């Protein structure tokens, strides 16, 4: 199997104490869609910046298609399309100009860049805004222009840091469909996202990062299997329901009157006993018992990390 990225013992420290990445080891196969999940400050963006040669690891090495990445490596710039977490700062360019210029800077001819830009702007739903200034767009539209600039020129590798941030559900679906199409074309895609539920559609493998380290890695199926000893219980209470009982309130509140909790399979009998209480069952509007999602796995790791810290 050919590796797009080989990350070996990568540590990144700032000053004496701040360790953004700590002994990160990872391989990403060519053509794979790989997700990096983790809470804010877990070291995801730092890792990604090293993968696009914007910064260098303090120790360790990163290889792209077998060759070691050097700081500001032009080979990386040529093969990798990158969408940064921060918005694209090309405020004074028109939408089409921003995408065309990026295509030209990737080495496309003027004609290729124009055609590619129009195609992408149609795909992301911004064709009717192509003559608007980037600076006048909404946050979501701005994000889509950034995505178009990352995709133009069809780079071998895409590294997308929170590609669906600020997008509405329709635009998010469009983005995931585009990424699925790129996956089918053999593009290697590295996704950093908090949108775990939706990303599960496209991800082949996932690494969960906590405090600069990778704490779990595998396919969404494998990670979920590791959490199969638990099931997820989701309970929605009626508007007129009294205060949620204590055992339910211990779960995660996912809406005004919605609770989600992981329950050990062995503890289901106890849950059913609670649910059997006539007062509670009358207050329940909706009840779901499902296998864990990738998001549950992620949350479980995060909660575990927080408990360890505490």
């Amino acid at each position, binding site marked *: 199997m050919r590796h797009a990225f080989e990350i070996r013992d990568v540590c990144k420290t700032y000053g004496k104490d701040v360790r953004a990445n700590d002994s990160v080891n990872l391989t990403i196969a060519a053509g794979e869609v790989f997700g990096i999940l983790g809470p804010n400050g877990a070291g995801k963006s730092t890792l990604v910046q090293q993968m696009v040669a914007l910064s260098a690891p303090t120790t360790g090495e990163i290889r792209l298609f077998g060759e070691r990445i050097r700081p500001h490596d032009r080979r990386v*710039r040529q*093969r*990798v399309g990158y969408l*940064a977490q921060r918005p694209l700062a090309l405020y*004074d360019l028109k939408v089409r100009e921003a995408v065309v210029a990026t295509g030209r800077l*990737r080495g496309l001819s003027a004609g290729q860049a124009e055609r590619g830009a129009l195609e992408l702007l149609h795909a992301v739903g911004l064709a009717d805004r192509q003559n608007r200034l980037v*600076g006048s767009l909404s946050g979501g539209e701005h994000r889509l222009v950034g995505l178009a600039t990352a995709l133009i020129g069809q780079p*071998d590798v895409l590294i997308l840091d929170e590609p669906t941030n600020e997008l509405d559900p329709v635009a998010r679906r469009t983005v995931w469909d585009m990424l699925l199409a790129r996956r089918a074309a053999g593009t290697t895609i590295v996704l950093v996202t908090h949108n775990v539920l939706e990303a599960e559609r496209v991800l082949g493998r996932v690494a969960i990062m906590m405090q600069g380290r990778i704490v779990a890695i595998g396919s969404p199926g494998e990670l979920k299997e590791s959490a199969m000893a638990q099931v997820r219980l989701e309970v929605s209470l009626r508007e007129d329901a009294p205060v949620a009982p204590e055992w339910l309130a211990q779960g995660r509140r996912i809406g005004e009157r919605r609770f989600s909790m992981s329950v050990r399979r062995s503890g289901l009998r106890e849950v059913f006993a609670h649910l059997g209480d006539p007062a509670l069952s009358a207050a329940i509007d909706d009840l779901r018992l499902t296998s864990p999602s990738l998001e549950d796995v992620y949350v479980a790791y995060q909660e575990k990390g927080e408990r360890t810290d505490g």
Partner: protein
Amino acid sequence: MADHAPKAPGVLSAFWVLLGMQLARARRSWRQYLIVSSAMPTGIAILLRAMLGRPDPSLALQIISGNVVLSVAITAIAMLAQQVAWMRQNRTFDYYQTLPVPNGAVILAILFAYLLFALPGIGVVLLVGALSYGVHLHITWGIVPAVLGTGVALSGIGALLGITARDGELAGLTGNLVMMAVLFLGIIPAARLPKALVALSDALPSTYGVRLLGHLLAGHLPPGVWLLDGACLVAFSAVLFVFVERLSNRVG
């Protein structure tokens, strides 16, 4: 997987695309560039005319060429320093540094764009200077390389300040201080400067730009001046460009 990445663009074609991207800034800010680059130098020229009466033609030319260089310095030092610091703070350079273009082309495009933003101001200063001092200015093509050389060297200083300053505010402050130095040391003839300031004056590219422009506007350019001042401006530009290019690798 097949390597189907397009070939990286050449330096020149990348430069033109990047210059176009930088010049787009004028879409929203051309009024500011025009006003800022012309108001202060024109105001100083008029103020000095009011205070000095009708100075001799050589001093008048010194004042006009000094203010032309000040016009360049406002955009190339003060505004550029702030812009570069802002780009650094907002990680705008990340966008360029993840594309297969040389950093040097990005830096040059930014420098040239800011130089071009100074052009309307230069025109206004020349016109107002000629009218208010009543001197005949020899407008020749030679002014273009003189302004270009001075501008590139000064914008090198601006970019350097922007890259090294902690934030945009500090870059703006230091940019304004350097600009003031350019103003005083450029307009006051070297013969009237204290000795300590003469050395400082020699260390600023603007001094050579003012002298070169003064001779050009007078229609009398001895080959020695042309060669010496031209070589100094080229040397300043080259050294500053190398510094800025190296430092820009560390940006982010």
